[in-house]
């Protein structure tokens, strides 16, 4: 990113399509607006936008679409507050505001030389920020011949991208393991238990694997523990962090986490860079 981007004002983007993923989560496809620096919208997997509703405010939302298809700008939004509720209540044809893309993304161009395996661990709506990276891995089989996705949600209803998960399961070079914390009375016949349980059960070579992790912070903690237990080095683990974010441009100060601004230095960090901070509470 250039050091010369003077920007404050969002652009409008028309909502083309809205798909319900779970009771409170929607995937919104926007017509791609110009990027923050004025040119064509281009994003790296793991980057986010500030999505806004005029008069209400903006929220940081990771881009969940395919980086190879920049004409459509896709976000998956869980309605948890007044702004995300207004965003997910927007009808196709209407406009949202977009500022972005911001932040450092997944290591899609820098996975370590010789790394032939990718393991993706996602919890709940932690999967959408990882999907652009998965698209990238699937589109580059020579570089990434083996991709494993471990995905967990609280219950079967909360699983997002269900149709796509089925498609991925059928692909020969992709292993997909899905689990839910509680099956309830849903008729779920799959695995039950937390996603971190799966890490000890799948086969991968810890010396050759690069791990990408996104989910609630408690799930991150246990995932990192399990990955390290399996012998994956912290330098080969990438993790997406979340903090309160109001501007995306490193000015508002809210997203500070130790010396880092999550919006600029993250949201994706290499685990060995942040390990010391990860162990501290209330920072």
């Amino acid at each position, binding site marked *: 990113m250039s050091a010369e*981007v003077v920007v*404050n004002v969002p652009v409008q983007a028309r909502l083309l399509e809205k798909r319900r993923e779970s009771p409170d989560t929607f995937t919104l496809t926007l017509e791609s607006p110009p990027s923050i620096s004025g040119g064509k919208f281009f994003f790296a997997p793991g980057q986010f936008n500030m999505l806004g509703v005029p*008069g209400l405010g903006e929220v940081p939302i990771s881009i969940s679409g395919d980086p190879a298809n920049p004409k459509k700008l896709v976000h998956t939004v869980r309605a948890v507050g007044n702004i995300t509720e207004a965003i997910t209540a927007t009808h196709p044809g209407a406009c949202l505001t977009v500022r972005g893309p911001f932040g450092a993304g997944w290591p899609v161009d820098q996975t370590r030389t010789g790394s032939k395996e990718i393991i993706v661990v996602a919890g709940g709506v932690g999967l959408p920020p990882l999907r652009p990276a998965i698209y990238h891995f699937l589109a580059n089989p020579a570089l990434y011949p083996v991709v494993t996705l471990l995905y967990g949600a609280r219950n079967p209803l909360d699983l997002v991208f269900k149709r796509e998960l089925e498609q991925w399961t059928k692909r020969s070079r992709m292993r997909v393991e899905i689990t839910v914390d509680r099956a309830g009375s849903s008729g779920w016949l799959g695995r039950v238990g937390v996603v971190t349980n799966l890490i000890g059960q799948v086969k991968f070579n810890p010396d050759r694997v690069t791990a990408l992790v996104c989910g609630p912070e408690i799930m991150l903690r246990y995932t990192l523990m399990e990955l390290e237990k399996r012998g994956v080095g912290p330098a080969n683990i990438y993790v997406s962090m979340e903090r309160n974010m109001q501007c995306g441009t490193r000015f508002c100060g809210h997203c500070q986490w130790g010396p880092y601004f999550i919006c600029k230095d993250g949201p994706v960090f290499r685990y060995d860079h942040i390990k010391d901070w990860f162990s501290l509470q209330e920072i």
Partner: protein
Amino acid sequence: MEALPLDEKINDLKVVLKVEDFQQLLDALIRRDYQVVGPTLKEGAVVYDSLTRVSQLPAGWTDEQQAGHYSLKKRSDQAYFGYGVGPQSWKKFLFPPRITLWKQKSPGEAPEPAELPQDAPRYAFLGVRACELKAITLQDQVFLTGPFIDPIYQARREKVFIVAVNCGQAGANCFCASVGSGPQVTQGYDLALTEVTAAPEAYFLVEVGSQAGQTLLNEVTHRPATGKEVAEARQVVERAASEMSKSLATADLKDFLYTNYENPYWAEVAGRCLACANCTLVCPTCFCTSPEDVSDLTGQVTEHRRRWDSCFSLDFSYLHGGSVRPSRQSRYRQWLTHKLGTWQDQFGEIGCVGCGRCITWCPVGIDLTTEIRALRQAAATLTAGTETNPKSDER
């Protein structure tokens, strides 16, 4: 201010501006379309506000500051700049406390910037102290060094004309000398004044710091300074430096703070801290903000504003149903560790200029220089305890 390289001659130029000709300086700035802002008395304090006459300056007044205390009192002379720094800093002009960033005239229309750079106010700051100049350069790093640049700050900063003033006395809460930001102004000004009151006739020794400063000075009656006058002016600043009683040892501060997140003394400070946010608002370098989105009654016209915010509020770190820093201890620790520690990783130096405002305006008089010493003491005691009591790990 203009960032033109100065030739040696200008840099060395020292002239005398007589007190009776001081108004000419303001007049010259006003003629050049500057909005002059400088110190004036208001609500029992020296604050920064618009000025047109030197008679609006706090001549003959000074202040008395202690931890949690500020009051004005009369001086024995008529010095214009015979006070320490007040509750306000210049950040309120370059980085306004409340400002609209963009507007949308109707839901169908694209958002537009609320202010174009050419419409930003053109300020001349009169009376900027060395610590405050340093604070401006620290905010420059925040807003102008990327990856994104703040156009609000940039537009104001590029236009500003700075008349700095060397300090002739140190306030009781000043510690600029120990953090290397004062009391002598060394760079970043257009003109720098040293007010000499003790001589038979009071005068300003003026130093030129930019081409713009030189040009302006040409419109003001002045004469070359004598060696004696230069020496007198130097003594003024030396007196301020020698008066300074507070200090902050900064050498290992980052490493110390990074290894002291769990220092038990944080709880002690938190027991006194009210989390009122005064320190962050008076701090000339604190830069945190929160957005405010508003609409008119019809809901058609909307604005996105930003206002100063503080890491001392619970809402500041709100995430998924709760604050990331629920305890007051964690919020005080965040503020102090950011200011003195993590700021160094973010911007290359500490975020404190030693102005002492956070000490003066803390309602319970928390003094960060004392707290850092107490934290060090607590850490030392803890280490000593571990060494002498090897069984302490068995708990």
